[in-house]
């Protein structure tokens, strides 16, 4: 599966929304339910699904899909 689809899968599970579609321009404010609690679940879900570890500050700041994909691509995912 492509990086985009895998990421979408994680989002769908965390936000419990099977029809959720991601675009690179999306940020936290575009996705319903992306609050501080969901953010924690999301970051953890991405770490588990992709086998990566965010740094402490990245963990707080990753609120933009394009940036997330760039980060994951940079890790060779």
């Amino acid at each position, binding site marked *: 599966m492509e990086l985009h689809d895998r990421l979408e899968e*994680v989002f769908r*599970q*965390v936000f*419990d929304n*099977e029809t959720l579609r991601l675009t690179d321009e999306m940020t936290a404010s575009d996705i319903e339910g992306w609050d*501080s*609690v969901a953010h*924690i*679940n999301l970051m*953890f*879900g991405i770490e*588990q*699904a992709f086998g990566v570890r*965010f*740094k*402490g500050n990245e*963990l*707080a700041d990753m609120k933009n899909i394009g940036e997330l994909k760039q980060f994951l691509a940079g890790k060779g995912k």
Partner: protein
Amino acid sequence: MNIARVHCHDLAATAETHGDTLRKNGQIEQAIKAYLEGVTAPPAAALCLKLARCYEQRGNHAEVCRWALAIVDSGDDYSAWQAGWALFQRTAAKAGRQVLRSVKVALLGSYTTTQLGPMLCLAAERLGIQVALYESQYGQYQQDILDPSSKLYAFGPDIVVLAVHEGDLHLSDYSQNPEEDVRKEVLRWTGLWKMVAERSRARLVQHNFALPCEVPTGHLATRLPGSRYMMTHAVNAKLGEAAANNVSLVDCERLSALFGKQRWCDPRYWNLSKQAVALEALPLLARHTAAVIAADLGLSRKCLVLDLDNTLWGGVIAEDGLAGIKLGQGPDGEAFTAFQDYLLKLKRKGVILTVCSKNNHADAIQPFEKHPEMRLKLDDIALFVANWESKPANIRTIAKTLQIGLDAMVFVDDNPAEREIVRTFLPEVDVIALPEDPSLYLRTLSQYLLLETSSLTAEDHERTDQYRARAQIMELEAAAGTIEEFYRSLRMQAIVTPFEASQLPRIAQLIGKTNQFNLTTRRHGMAQLETFVRDESYVHLALRLRDRYTDHGLVSVMIARQQEHVLDIDTWLMSCRVIGRTVEATMLEHLCRRAAQLGCTALRGTYIPTQKNAMAADAFAKHGFERVGTNGRDEIWSYDLAAKGLIANAFVTSVHTWESADGAS
């Protein structure tokens, strides 16, 4: 064996991929079929989720719940649990599920518990416990407890979980006066316990303190009683000592070590959102907390049903013979004896051991009688069933003979086919999947959580003996002529006394978990019992029973309140191990005597029907009470002492101390 396994794994994966394709094409029914073919035991979390989602699309609520809960069995994958809880939560109300208990749980934390809450609910629901959850505001556990008008008390919790962490301890890095500091800190916690007990009916479940992996004084810390490290140890130990019967502890120190302390707390998530326990550790913490709650509610399992060949020893006794089975010698042999030793330890804490084996009886008992390395003896087994019937049929027989529910049983077998049959035909029975390697049997069993007990009483140590006696009595019952002859042949003696302080834990245990012969099912806690004992308007009776076979211990409890000339029965219950032996009449006999002493002219009783206590419905009618009214579904019964005289039981001799007549040693 390995080839078969790989093949099997491949099949499951193929089935799942096939299901994914079908689902994408909107062929949901076919997708479900494909997914079901891919289900392994335990099922994979991802597959459980897919099945739950498919069933949701089909509007099959019961199956959505079933597969959402199956995620708990699939492993401790936080993300899957979180998704499973979302599905379960929005479906459960529509599914019309049967639950064993419904409880209000207040989760009070010293750290962010927003994620722990749902995990705890899911783990509890898996055990049949429906949870209404209250969460304190972040870190507000003390305020909630100290303020009598707090939302906590308005919520009216049945259970208060104190989810707290080491960082919250009021201890300095180094103390000149560690004893005093530890004493003060323990007093802070026990003070909170006491306040909860005074202001609510809740039982407390306290997480103890996981020692951190960072220790500034290093190995030296263990030599310094004043180090925070050693003081934390001391606080844990003292909390254990201080926990009375209304407080249970979850040993987070052990859990964190089991999980790995480096992973138990993730500093990144602590810094970001004050998660003192890492998300990946939450399912484990939730499962253990739920198991402790289940034990408090009397929902733990009581009885292990053990296979023999390749479960208690290596090889097949009927083929390999006494000299050929692996036991005691060699790596596998050692593993089997270690496993048996562990079973004995479980027996000592009150777990009933039974055997269910496809074997000729004469072959099956041989190792128990003759093999020098056998740790388990025939005496340790409450009921020994070796024949060629199906295991589900035999397990039913065992349940019936010992008079325990299927939902109190756990099946232990090395054979996956037998396990599958039992899972399919007896879904109420829990099944432990022993791994292929006998070296890991003990550990696998030790990780099964529903054998938790909330207290140990003298009765627990003797439970298998008592159930063995019961099995013998069932045989006798078959042989004896009339029922009266049978009762007499038991030579029963009872000691009935007011509650004694030393009996209160056992009485609280009985009140907490007796479901069947329980007229009112009022779950009084320790504090309440102590009030009854102090209040002179209450009559309280505890009954101990012996017969020619065994000492059954404290098995029946009655609490009644004098209201002028009427003695009103608040609580009357009897352990199911002595049902059908006329013990009820003995309890009433003693109540009548007390009533007469107090100048009462009538007894009043209430029967409150529940899903489980139908067997007690005729308890009053059988002894000459008359139904005088109803209150909703509750029935009010009355016994006219003046007109009908004292109730007496000819089959049980009431004594002050045990008389060692005929075998009742």
